[in-house]
């Protein structure tokens, strides 16, 4: 290589290093620029056009902070869960899951009868908007509402060390003490799931998917050996749902629920179910295995295992 060529190669190398460093700086800078988000949660009684604030709370945390509002009285119970995501730094996507239970009456034997309801909504709102939750609907002159107003703060979401700042809650519930409670947590919403089929410990098929927490997603396992007809014609697939294992457990524990089936042949939309509503608890990054030897009918003999590996998605 000539001196000119060496110089050119060195320049190219230097340029690549500068670009890489710039990218890293950009990522770190983007993280450093992220601000904490505050949700003001106000419960209001409106009577005759007059607003009367019953409680006032703030939940503050990094983007992706989730919170839960619980109402519980003698006859009525509501669990409202809000999974929030910052979109383009100027809007929020909020997945709201509402569960209510109302004491409907009592039976002839004086046993309680309940009316239960579950709703899921995905809301998109700017920081100029608020979420209005009416636990009892709109009927009546005396209305109870929960207003959730998001705001970007000036507080950084990440510490200088790169660690995420924890959520914080402040609540003034003097009038609703014992009736309202609020919880918050910051846990990943998206996971990269890798599902593998092992035969005698050797991986023979694999599928990958990015899954949103608490939303079912299909992962189709493609054979690593394309000549494997049994897995090519009717590949295995998993309908997978991930959810927090429990509110009070480590955030890296996930409840895994899945159906396992063989996908129908092209043109035929029939699934051959192998397992329905299997469940387990996985630790993020660690393998979770299921023995399929007695269940995967139609597959060649051998010790068959299904392996899950779930990791929080890089954002």
């Amino acid at each position, binding site marked *: 290589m000539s001196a000119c060529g060496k110089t050119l190669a060195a320049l190219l190398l230097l340029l690549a290093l500068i670009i890489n460093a710039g990218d890293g700086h950009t990522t770190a800078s983007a993280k450093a620029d992220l601000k904490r988000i505050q949700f003001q949660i106000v419960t209001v009684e409106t009577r005759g056009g007059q607003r009367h604030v019953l409680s006032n709370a703030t939940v503050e945390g990094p983007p992706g902070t989730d919170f839960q509002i619980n109402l519980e009285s003698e006859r*009525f119970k509501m669990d409202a869960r809000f999974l929030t995501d910052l979109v383009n730094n100027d809007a929020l996507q909020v997945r709201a899951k509402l569960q*209510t239970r109302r004491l409907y009456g009592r039976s002839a034997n004086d046993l309680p009868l309940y009316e239960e309801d579950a709703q899921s909504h995905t809301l998109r709102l700017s920081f100029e908007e608020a979420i209005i939750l009416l636990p009892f609907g709109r009927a009546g002159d005396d209305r109870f509402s929960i207003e959730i107003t998001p705001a970007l703060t000036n507080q950084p979401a990440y510490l200088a060390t790169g660690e995420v700042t924890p959520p914080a809650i402040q609540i003034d519930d003097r009038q609703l*003490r014992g009736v309202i409670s609020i919880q918050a947590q910051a846990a990943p919403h998206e996971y990269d799931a890798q599902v593998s089929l092992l035969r005698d410990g050797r991986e023979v098929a694999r599928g990958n998917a990015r899954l949103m927490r608490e939303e079912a997603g299909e992962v189709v396992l493609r054979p690593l050996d394309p000549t494997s007809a049994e897995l090519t014609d009717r590949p295995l697939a998993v309908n997978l749902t991930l959810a927090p294992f429990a509110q009070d457990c480590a955030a890296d524990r996930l409840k895994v629920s899945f159906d396992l089936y063989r996908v129908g042949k092209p043109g035929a939309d029939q699934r051959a179910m192998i397992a329905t509503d299997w469940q387990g608890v996985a630790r993020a990054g660690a393998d979770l295995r299921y023995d399929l030897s007695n269940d995967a009918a139609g597959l060649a003999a051998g010790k068959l295992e299904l392996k899950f590996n779930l990791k929080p998605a890089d954002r």
Partner: protein
Amino acid sequence: MSCNLTEKVSLWIDGELAADEAERLAQHVAACPVCSSARADFLRLRRQVKAYEFTPDLEARQRALAQILKPAPVPLWRRRLAVPVPVFAVIVLMIAVAVWAIFPRLVAKPSPAVLQPNDPARASQNHFDLSRFDHGERAEIYTAPRQAATR
């Protein structure tokens, strides 16, 4: 003093011994003072028994007669009742009325749950009462401009 033939003396007096044995015993009794005394006692007792005048006890006789004539005990399940026809008719009528009143309850299906309105008194007095907002409607959620929300 005793003699082992004394017992036979009673049989001899009753004429229950064979002739030769009776003859031998007679010779013995003549020579044996014990048996001779026993023979004298037996004969005296016989005379006294024969001389006893029997006076029947009427009460005892009636009791004995009643005992003899008493019918054999009949088990409860084999006894018979004799009821006058009007009484029997009343009993049948009462049974019919009872069956008419009870049978529908026995064959009736369990009634469905009866909803009873909630008793306001059941509501806790310690907490803020949310029930006044509850008109049985479904929860609702939506977004609104911030100004409208705070109105």
